[in-house]
């Protein structure tokens, strides 16, 4: 079964090469891209079943035993992430096929979209299955370089401006990560994650702390954790709708995944847990306060994205099995729901010609289907029972209460407040864009709009554009998946729990990579 592991990376990479060759045949390109992602989805599902049934899969690349050779490790967490990412990537791909990336193709050259998209997928999958730090770095670089291209697609001035910030910040995080790898190699003589975990305990604690902080800084920038999060709401909203959807869903979560690995395998002890809890608190609150002030739906969603990263960091920082379990469930929930909301925002933009709540109105009557497709994930993100957002937050709060420190209870309070404010911002969109009659938009006054600031350089309302059935189907499919997270919450939570138990300390990870013990 381990032979399947490298295919997760190889299939999208070969697909990217093939789509590049087929540059002049858009239909064949789309077909290849969709087939490649479907294959990865199937392989991911098989890996998840196998990893869940018979334990962690370890592939020694080229047959070289670890510590000399490179290992690819698929445990329950990695397999789960691969499956969820494949679902999201596939749905957004279908959405973008329906949208033809953007009409009037002058803004977006379609022929490079599919290869770049598949390379992005390659990077994401490679990061999930990496068994050594340098391979993780390479995975990050692959997905980042692809994301630079997607972010500046078409090269309009606004995108170049936003892309520049994004690229410079990402370059700094990559350099920090590479420097951290160099220092870890200098201190421990290895870059294999399992071996690092064994040797880390043997070096002085102050050196450990330096390495720990460097890794967390590098991953924190990628995950958009509070003091390092300001690049995100600035850069995401300018990209094309499908690109923003997949970035919001996946890229930050790759950072969160790396933080989970750092906290559970490389530094399993309490380490910086208290600092992480404070950071989680600030991320939640600062993020949602930004969202409250935004009139533009895409910018508002970008701020809620930052604030909900705080929930995941909270789960990780608890340092208990229950906390890790809740964090894993929350990551899965958030990838699906945040992507769905951004796709729905893309539909709103085409139907209403704008994404600003000051200019939208009467959408419930004009487009009832879009209303449903926005309303369900909005309630879900706000944490209304019985949706998965509620279940995830409940699990996080339970885990915090079990841990029982004063700070943990402060975090529960903050978490509840933040979910209320999230609900407020989303229901404000609902009230204004969907419920408000279209003829009332001109000269409308309401306390809801008092402290809202428009997106800078906001565009005037555009003509209504046609929405192809494929876009609605893709968004509807994602809504169905998010509902499935509720219906099948039992089995999913059980898998998360087993994944969390796997990550209770580093012993099971080390035993999987070095079955005969570490030399």
């Amino acid at each position, binding site marked *: 079964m381990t032979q399947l592991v490298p295919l997760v990376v190889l299939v999208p990479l070969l697909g990217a090469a093939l789509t590049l060759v087929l540059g002049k045949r858009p239909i064949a390109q789309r077909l290849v891209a969709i087939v490649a992602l479907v294959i990865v989805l199937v392989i991911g599902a098989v890996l998840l079943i196998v990893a869940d049934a018979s334990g962690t899969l370890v592939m020694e690349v080229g047959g070289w035993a670890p510590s000399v050779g490179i290992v690819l490790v698929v445990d329950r967490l990695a397999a789960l992430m691969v499956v969820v990412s494949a679902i999201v990537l596939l749905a957004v791909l279908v959405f973008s096929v329906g949208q033809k990336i953007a009409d009037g193709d002058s803004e977006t050259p379609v022929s490079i979209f599919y290869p770049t998209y598949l390379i992005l997928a390659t990077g994401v999958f490679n990061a999930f299955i990496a068994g050594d730090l340098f391979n993780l770095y390479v995975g990050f670089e692959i997905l980042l*370089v692809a994301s630079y291209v997607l972010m500046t697609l078409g090269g*309009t*001035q606004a995108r170049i401006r936003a892309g520049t*910030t994004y690229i410079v910040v990402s370059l700094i995080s990559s350099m920090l990560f590479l*420097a951290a790898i160099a220092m870890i190699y200098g201190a421990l003589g290895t870059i294999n994650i399992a071996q690092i975990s064994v040797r880390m305990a043997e070096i002085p604690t102050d050196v450990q702390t330096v390495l720990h902080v460097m890794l967390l800084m590098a991953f924190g920038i990628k995950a958009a954790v509070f003091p390092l999060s300001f690049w995100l709401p600035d850069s995401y909203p300018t990209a094309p709708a499908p690109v923003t959807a997949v970035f919001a869903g996946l890229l930050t979560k790759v950072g969160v995944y790396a933080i989970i690995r750092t906290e559970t395998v490389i530094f399993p002890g309490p380490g910086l847990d208290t600092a992480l809890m404070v950071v989680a608190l600030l991320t939640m609150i600062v993020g949602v306060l930004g969202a409250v002030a935004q009139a533009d739906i895409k910018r508002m969603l970008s701020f809620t994205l930052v604030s909900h990263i705080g929930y995941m960091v909270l789960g990780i920082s608890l340092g208990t099995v229950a906390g890790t379990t809740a964090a894993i469930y929350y990551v899965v929930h958030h990838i699906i729901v945040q992507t769905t909301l951004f796709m729905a925002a893309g539909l709103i933009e085409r139907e209403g010609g704008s994404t600003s709540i000051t200019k939208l109105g009467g959408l419930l009557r004009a487009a009832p289907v879009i209303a449903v497709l926005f309303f369900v994930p909005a309630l879900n993100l706000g944490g209304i029972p019985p949706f998965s957002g509620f279940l995830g937050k409940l699990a996080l709060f339970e885990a915090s209460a079990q841990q029982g420190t004063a700070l943990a209870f402060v975090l529960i309070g903050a978490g509840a407040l933040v979910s209320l404010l999230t609900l407020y911002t989303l229901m404000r969109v609902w009230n204004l864009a969907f419920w408000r009659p279209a003829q009332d938009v001109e000269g409308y006054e309401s306390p809801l709009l008092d402290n809202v600031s428009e997106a800078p350089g906001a565009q005037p309302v555009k003509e209504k554009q046609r929405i192809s059935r494929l876009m609605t189907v893709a968004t509807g499919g994602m809504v169905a998946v998010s509902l499935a997270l509720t219906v099948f919450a039992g089995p999913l939570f059980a898998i998360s729990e087993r994944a969390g138990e796997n990550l209770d300390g580093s012993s099971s990870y080390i035993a999987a990579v070095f079955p005969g013990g570490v030399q």
Partner: protein
Amino acid sequence: MTISLVLLIVMAVLYACGVYLMLERSMTRVLLGFLLVGNATNLLLIAMAGQPGEAPIVRDGLAAQDMTDPLPQALILTAIVITFGVSAFLMALIYRSWRLANRDQLEDDADDVALRAGAGGVRVEQLVADDRDSEFDPAQRSSDEAER
């Protein structure tokens, strides 16, 4: 582990200059800064290989501790290739930025401008037409400069 002092000093200077340049507004300087920081990190990796020794080719009469550690060199090679690809992309970005606005400076952040104005309201961004190609047309270019 012994470390070459020269390597360490060069690395520190490269890091300092690189970080300084990356804080500049001009994109070309950011690119130069990125190249310096990238090379400083490569030197850090080399330094972590420890004492240099014989070429790491297994043969009779050569003990493992007499060889240079080959792994950091493999890492550096990969890092160099990545830095190369990213700088190529950055150059394309700078060129595009130049085509659009005839300068490579990072524009003011629209949010900051709005805040400074105190209005917190809408600011209409003036876009230079995408297809106006003033670069190779002196007449057009001078009129552009006059506008500014």
